[in-house]
């Protein structure tokens, strides 16, 4: 039987879209909804659905831990964001002003930490900044006659900013570089002719012209940092000491999958995750409006 034109188009669209749509629904949308549901239960290692209403939320807001994890999250997001943005600007400014080949090389080489398996990058950082004597930096200091420095104890936040920042800066560096490269050379030449110094050119011309790119990166990066914890888990794991780097999502992870399944407090953990999900959703929608992402959605032609 020959299908009509509309029908055959529909079949084509459906068949080609179905795997993606099913995957997204099944493994992303459904779990998101499920998380919200779980947050309303006392689900634990017995895997029994015991509804408890907003009990978990009440428990969380009365928890003495809450202030620690919120503070840690704020420091983590703000610090990493600052590192990423500043380092990205440095990469972009330097790599667009030096010889073209060297510039490309710099941007390329900064992708390396990003493509390295997280485990390897984390172990490298842990080894280099290890507080023990055999840590790489300390071994150098000891060789030079100094005393080993307990890096990760003294400077745990800067350490985490570096660990995460080397991953994030590749992104900001690339975004900002391409923005700078798209500034017409005429502006720069005109400013030079007017007698502006390199510093003035950066401050008065380049930065204002890429401010939307910076804003976009900050927005985008905030969203991903709020719910990311892989590198903290792999390095300091919430320590040193009492919850010093325990960000919210890491706390949720510990509650759910912490030490040897004694935790498995899924219901309570899902509460924190739900809050993060809501924040993420609100931010996404706000960005959607602000950055007018709708224009990415020009209607296509084929019928």
């Amino acid at each position: 039987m020959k299908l009509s034109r509309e029908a055959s188009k529909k079949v084509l669209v459906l068949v080609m879209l179905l795997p993606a749509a099913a995957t997204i629904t099944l493994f992303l949308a459904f779990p998101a909804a499920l998380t919200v549901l779980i947050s309303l239960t006392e689900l634990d290692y017995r895997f029994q659905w015991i509804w408890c209403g907003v009990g978990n939320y009440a428990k969380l807001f009365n928890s003495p831990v809450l202030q620690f994890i919120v503070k840690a999250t704020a420091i983590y997001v703000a610090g990493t964001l600052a590192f990423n943005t500043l380092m990205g600007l440095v990469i972009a400014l330097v790599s667009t002003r030096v010889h073209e080949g060297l510039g490309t090389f710099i941007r390329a080489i900064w992708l390396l930490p990003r493509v390295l398996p997280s485990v390897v990058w984390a172990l490298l950082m842990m080894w280099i900044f290890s507080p023990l004597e055999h840590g790489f930096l300390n071994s150098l200091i000891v060789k030079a006659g100094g005393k080993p420095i307990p890096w990760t104890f003294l400077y745990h936040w800067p350490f985490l900013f570096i660990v995460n920042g080397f991953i994030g800066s590749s992104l900001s560096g690339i975004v900002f570089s391409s923005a700078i490269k798209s500034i017409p050379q005429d502006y720069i030449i005109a400013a030079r002719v007017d007698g502006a110094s390199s510093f003035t050119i950066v401050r008065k011309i380049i930065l204002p012209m890429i401010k939307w790119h910076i804003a976009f990166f900050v927005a985008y990066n905030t969203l991903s940092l709020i719910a990311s914890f892989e590198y903290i888990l792999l390095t300091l794991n919430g320590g040193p000491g009492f919850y010093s780097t325990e960000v919210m999502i890491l706390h949720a992870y510990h509650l759910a999958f912490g030490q040897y399944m004694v935790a498995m407090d899924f219901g309570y953990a899902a509460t924190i995750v739900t809050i993060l999900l809501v924040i993420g959703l609100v931010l996404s929608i706000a960005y959607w409006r602000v950055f007018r992402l709708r224009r990415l959605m020009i209607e296509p032609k084929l019928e």
Partner: protein
Amino acid sequence: MRAGKILLYAAAVVLAALPVVPVILLFFLAFSEHPIYVEGFTLKNFEFLKTGVLFSDHPLYSRLYPNVYTVMVNTFLLALGNMLLVVLVSSMAAYVISRYSFKGRSALLGAFLVIHGVPASVLLIALYYMLKATGLLNTLLGVVLVKMSVDLPLGVWVLKGFYDGIPWDTEIAALVDGASRVGAFFRIMLPLVSPGLFAVGLFSFLSGWGEYIFVYTFIQSSTNWTFSLLIQSLFSEMGGINLALVAALSIVYLIPVLAIFITGEKYLLRVTIGGVKG
């Protein structure tokens, strides 16, 4: 002017060196004679490659860890599965989204965008529950399915960009020349986005190869371990005893990563940029 230029180039060289130095140090450590310091040169840290057994001279330790080759195969299966599924599913979906006008298109695109912005680790609890309920917990298949759904939105966005880059006229020409819609897809569109398929393929291979959280959370049985789990476990348990071995193992783990990075850097860059635009 002159001094400024020298300063600029000095900064450039430092910038270029920063990300590579740790990796170079890793190589030194892997070939080090001393188990925890960088010292001398030896191949003995790589002896496990002969049989795949770690600590083969130490009966107690050697039983703690799975065979390296089993781990390698597991890692490869995860990476390959992720790559094939992401490329297959996203190449079809991105084509339809790029080319066809249908109800719910912008909703779908918006969904891809939002999902792609939020790290999927927030879904771990629910996914754990679902995998347990379906019996996929502790299996590589379960991890592959989760991993590929997480990488899918990026793949769709990047490939949509590649499809968008093919002029309408080219596809219309194919239709007018006598190709069916499906024919035009296979004979014209797919060959023309092959750089995109390649880029997304490389990216999702690396992404699967390096995956840690999902494996760590969803897999307990050591026969299903991947490199990331083995290395993390070795580092936290044996890091003070035989760091050089961990480094050597990491080098083996890194070989495909570095090979892909060096040859396919251009493609990975496209995915990174596409991911941000999306």
